């Protein structure tokens, strides 16, 4: 019954359900033509549209109205029309805008990956590698903050926050009595908890998993190791609060960290509870399923590429 819409991204066509966003259509195709996403998170309702890293050019609106869209659009929030043609990596304008966005994001996010706990799992690290300039043109003081403990398990380092709002959506959608959000405006905005409150909820740990950079980190894991030296293993347990499906991160025989399982875009498959995340760090707590799939962009997967690179058709 369902009529599908045809979309062409960088010369590669696909048929998708009406209502699909350009970003998700691109994800269905896969490979290099998938726009990067720093704020969109498929498991969080209403997310996306803010970071502007996923901007693409719509060079043909639809079969009915073939006019190009006048501005670049956020692919994570723009739905596909039948016959739409989109340029991502084939548009110099998109690459230029994306370079601009990366430059803006790096104004208040230090590229000190060697001392950041998220190194190896950070979307901004990948993005700046792909789109960043070798030097910054920004010569003014950057904003700096003290680290803040929000609860006994989570540390916030605002220096690294890129205000993607993902953790705010988690707090909104997964926890009751939200105490965590954004205060201030413009470049004075800060992630914060309500004065002196801690995030205290069975699902609070998920803010760590969604943070695309190293702003929210797991205090039980911080600096125990670099992620690329750890071995991710899929495991599950019977949990009365969550799905109980996780990734255990091993160093030798020890479980150093427990996270939700993530897909190739670094998004969790299902959110997990704090008991699974923090209190179950023995192998005997878990049923081991086997080696975990590794994120597409992670350095952990260096040399492990699964070869899913869709060729771009040269239309000259």
């Amino acid at each position, binding site marked *: 019954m369902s009529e599908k819409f045809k979309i062409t991204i960088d010369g590669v066509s696909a048929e998708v359900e009406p209502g699909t966003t350009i970003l998700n259509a691109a994800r269905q195709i896969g490979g290099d033509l998938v726009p990067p996403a720093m704020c969109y998170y498929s498991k969080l309702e209403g997310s996306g549209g803010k970071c502007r890293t996923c901007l693409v050019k719509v060079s043909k609106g639809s079969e009915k109205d073939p006019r190009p869209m006048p*501005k670049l659009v956020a692919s994570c929030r723009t739905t596909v029309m039948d016959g739409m043609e989109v340029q991502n990596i084939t548009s110099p304008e998109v690459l230029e805008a994306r370079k601009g966005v990366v430059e803006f*994001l790096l104004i208040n996010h230090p590229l000190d990956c060697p001392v950041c706990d998220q190194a190896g799992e950070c979307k901004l690290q990948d993005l700046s590698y792909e789109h960043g300039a070798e030097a910054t043109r920004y010569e003014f003081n950057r904003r700096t903050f003290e680290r803040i403990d929000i609860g006994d398990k989570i540390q916030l380092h605002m220096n690294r926050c890129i205000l993607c709002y993902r953790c705010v959506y988690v707090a909104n959608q997964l926890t009751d009595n939200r105490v965590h959000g954004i205060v201030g405006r413009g470049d004075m905005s800060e992630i914060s908890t309500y004065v002196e409150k801690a995030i205290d909820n069975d699902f609070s740990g998920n803010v760590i998993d969604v943070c695309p950079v190293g702003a929210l980190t797991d205090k039980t894991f911080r600096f125990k190791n670099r992620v690329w030296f750890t071995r991710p293993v899929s495991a599950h347990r019977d949990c009365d609060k969550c799905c109980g499906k996780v990734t255990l991160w091993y160093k030798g025989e020890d479980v150093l960290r427990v996270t939700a399982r993530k897909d190739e875009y670094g998004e969790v498959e299902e959110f997990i509870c704090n008991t699974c995340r923090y209190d179950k760090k023995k192998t005997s707590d878990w049923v081991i399923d086997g080696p975990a799939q590794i994120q597409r962009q992670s350095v952990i997967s260096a040399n492990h590429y699964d070869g899913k690179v869709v060729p771009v058709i040269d239309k000259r």
Partner: protein
Amino acid sequence: MGVKILTQHSGVPGIDTFEVYRKQGGYAAVEKALKSMSPEEVLEEVKKSGLRGRGGAGFPTGLKWSFLAKPEGVPRYLVCNADESEPGTFKDRELMSRNPHSLIEGMIVSSYALGANTSYIYVRGELFYVIRILEKAIAEAYEKGLLGKNILGTGYDLDLYVQPGGGAYICGEETALIESLEGKRGNPRIKPPFPAVSGVWGCPTVVNNVETIAATSWIILNGGDEYAKIGIGRSTGTKLISACGNINQPGIYEIELGLPVEEFIYSDEYCGGIAGGKRLKAVVAGGSSVPVLPANLILKTIAGEPRLMTYESLADGGFATGTMMGSGGFIAMDEDACIVRNTWNFTRFYHHESCGQCSPCREGTGWMEKVLHRIEYGHGKMSDIDLLVDVAAKIEGNTICPLGDAAAWPVGSAIRHFREEFEWHVKEPRLSQQQNYGLAAYADPLPVPVTEES
């Protein structure tokens, strides 16, 4: 003297009271619309009038109203945008405080056309005196049966509320306004969905400027065709212009669209020429977010035609040599004005007012502000000028709401037209603090007007 629609009662003592307003013929449009016209007929008249939104973008009001979704059993809302906080724009507050009933009358007529039974006037919080005036007038209107249940016995119900805002510029952007009205942080929503489909409380909503709504009563009373006769082409009717800067007679003027800019600046009926007998250097014609133009380009288009106060004429030449009508905030700068300082000042405003949701605006406005500050205070580098152009270009068009564009346009246009002045600030940091520069290239070609002193 041109036709006066919005300021027709100007100077009538006690016009802010129901009695006097009624005696002056007020609320006749409500009577006409509710008693003898269907909502569709009211909408049709507004369409015929060619009225365009006076809040900045100039979108045709009738067309905007016709986009309003009308699902069964779902309420619709009209929200009046009285947030007015664009630097240089100060027309709505005057209209509301001097003649509150004219807005209320417009709200009733417009709400009727849209099928809204609850409407809001969202007023910038600082304008507390305006809120008081409006609330008093609304209470009077309820008392006289012009608001509430079964208005004038016609069976139409309307409740009207005044909602004070917190005083953030971004809350003037229609979707941020809706968020704020709902009691949330005033962050713009990502469109689509547009308010016409999902606005206040997720219901179909129209957001219109004060001046737009106030004009509808006259249109209903006199007919859309009469309104369309005023003005030129697609710029119909009258427009309030708030004029300020280095002019002899700053103030709010109601002009017929089509008035030559030159006449507006130099005639005694309006701005009365440049103060102190000085020469005009630059104009920001539509509030601080529109591109600034040097005197020669604001007076004449690039084709040498006189520039007119119409949407089309002001925009003639695109952003290369033209500007926008915007909200009608007309800021004139004389030969002594420092463009760099002025641009820095505007940018300071946008930096302060960015909501911070999207990366280009959040980070870019602050960056531009810092670079401009450095140039203005004599520590700039030549490369800063191109850096500003590039940063502005990377913000423009890439943000969620038009505040990003509003921040980028003043910078881009100032450098486009006054680059030498920026360069001079870099080259001669001390001199640039003391004397004006570049007048010969930019100032108006007219003879210096004779003033009393000279």
